[in-house]
């Protein structure tokens, strides 16, 4: 994410250094959004407890999406929640990143074969870092946050923005309207 939303690092010294500095600042002060969905949310809360303290790295929770940088999707996303999740993502101010925490957010997890579960949150929002685990340990979440920090401040990698994965059904349809689930 460039200084002015640009797609590559500016070539000259002044703007380039400024770009580096702003992205350094963005990476050192990431503010996650409190969006705990399921079991991974408890491990996310445990990442901020005194044993593994993510506040050491300058991250503290903001409750409103407008002021948050990172959305840590922790838990299974089902079709009812998909629309709301996308809305929250849209409400976040640029620049924003998404961490997909846990097996359920990565690809559906143990619930992948369910009728109401979206197989991975990357079908809804673009994801920057995936964390495997069910649930991932707090240290794993911290590693992912540090990985995201390094990704944001890295010179080439920060301009590569991920995209959502296409699905063959409409993730955001209300139940009964997407053609797959019959209305009872």
């Amino acid at each position, binding site marked *: 994410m460039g200084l002015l939303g640009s797609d590559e690092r500016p070539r000259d010294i002044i703007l380039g250094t400024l770009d580096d500095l702003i992205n350094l600042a963005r990476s050192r002060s990431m503010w996650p959004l*409190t969006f705990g969905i*399921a079991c991974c949310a*408890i491990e996310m809360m445990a990442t901020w*407890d005194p044993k593994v303290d993510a506040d050491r790295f300058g991250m503290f929770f903001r409750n409103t999406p407008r002021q948050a940088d990172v959305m840590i999707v922790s838990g299974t996303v089902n079709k009812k929640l998909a629309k709301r999740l996308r809305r929250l993502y849209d409400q976040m101010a640029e620049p924003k990143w998404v961490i997909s925490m846990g097996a359920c957010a990565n690809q559906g997890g143990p619930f992948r*074969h369910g009728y109401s579960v979206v197989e991975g949150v990357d079908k809804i929002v673009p994801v920057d870092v995936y964390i495997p685990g069910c649930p991932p340990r707090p240290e794993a979440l911290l590693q992912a946050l540090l990985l995201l920090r390094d990704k944001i401040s890295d010179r080439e990698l920060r301009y590569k923005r991920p995209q959502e994965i296409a699905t063959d059904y409409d993730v955001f349809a209300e139940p009964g309207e997407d053609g797959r689930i019959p209305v009872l």
Partner: protein
Amino acid sequence: MSSTIGLEPVLGRSDEMIVNMGPQHPATHGVLRVVIGLEGERITRAVPHIGYLHRNHEKIEESRTYFQVVPFTDRMDYVSGTQNELPVVLAVEDLAGIEVPERAKMIRTMFFELFRIASHLVWMGTAMLDLGAITPFLYTFWDREIILGIVERTAGARMLPNYYTFGGVRRDLHPHFFKDVAEFLDHLEKRMPDYEHLVLENPIVHARTVGVGVLSKERAVARGVSGPVLRASGVAYDVRKAFPYDAYPEVEFEIPTSDAGDTYARFWVRFQEIYQSVKILRQLLEKTPKTGPFKGRAPARLKISGERYRAVENSRGELGVYVVGDGGDKPYRIKHRGAAFSNLQVIPDLFIGAKFSDAIAILSSLDPVFGEIDR
């Protein structure tokens, strides 16, 4: 569309402002949406919407063997870990006639009570966070980390250990288990007076919770409420005493009950339950033999036929399961009775007429966990 239930305008209430306490809110209870109608600060309508975490537990479990069902149920009440596994394990043991050795029963009960303490610690931290105090959250999570460390050394995973199995538990206790648990109990008993000072004897907490959200005995029984919410309204019903299982017939403990039925009573009952769990654990630490069988004999392919309902006393109430087996190794139907699901039914009763901040306090005292509610 179902998502607009509760948003209909009502004649005569033009002052009402309808607010959506949406699936994302910082009260960290999970994904609950309550459509609240406010007149000033007073609530005039409250319609809860659940289902944002519906993960098809019961349908998926129809295509898993009984051994695979057990770790699946862990994810229901995710704060309480192994407590969710026990109803299925007990039901299948009854139907298949599997014998459980005494020592295994005591180990299961010890883990059950450890997770009850862990769950109540999470509740305490998040309840105080809802009321505005940011510090107890970190103290209780530190104590919970100690418990999770003990569980991890024995079972392998911190929060969702797949530890109970048909006939007992999967692995033996680790060598330092008794010492670890004794140390933890000493540490907790030193901390509990601090928690009482911070929570129960705090005048601001009194002002926020005493007399707020009173649930009468008749209403609680009518709504099917169970657990600390029911006991705080005066009904002394605890599945551990009414239909005992595992090693509970051999330990002495009391059921804390309160007549007040308000939010402070629910806080108080959960505190007392922590003390009772500590008492049970101390008795079990002495009674459990240090070596011995931890698992009875169970067939490798388990074929179950018949129906059975078993319930246990979760941290939230009566968690039950109704297993229907048709002779195969996969269940024909498993129905879970979630404790917090029935507890949530009192939301319209308690919210309407209360002020908005009271609603937050009431919700935190009901202690919902959405894995169990939405399944």
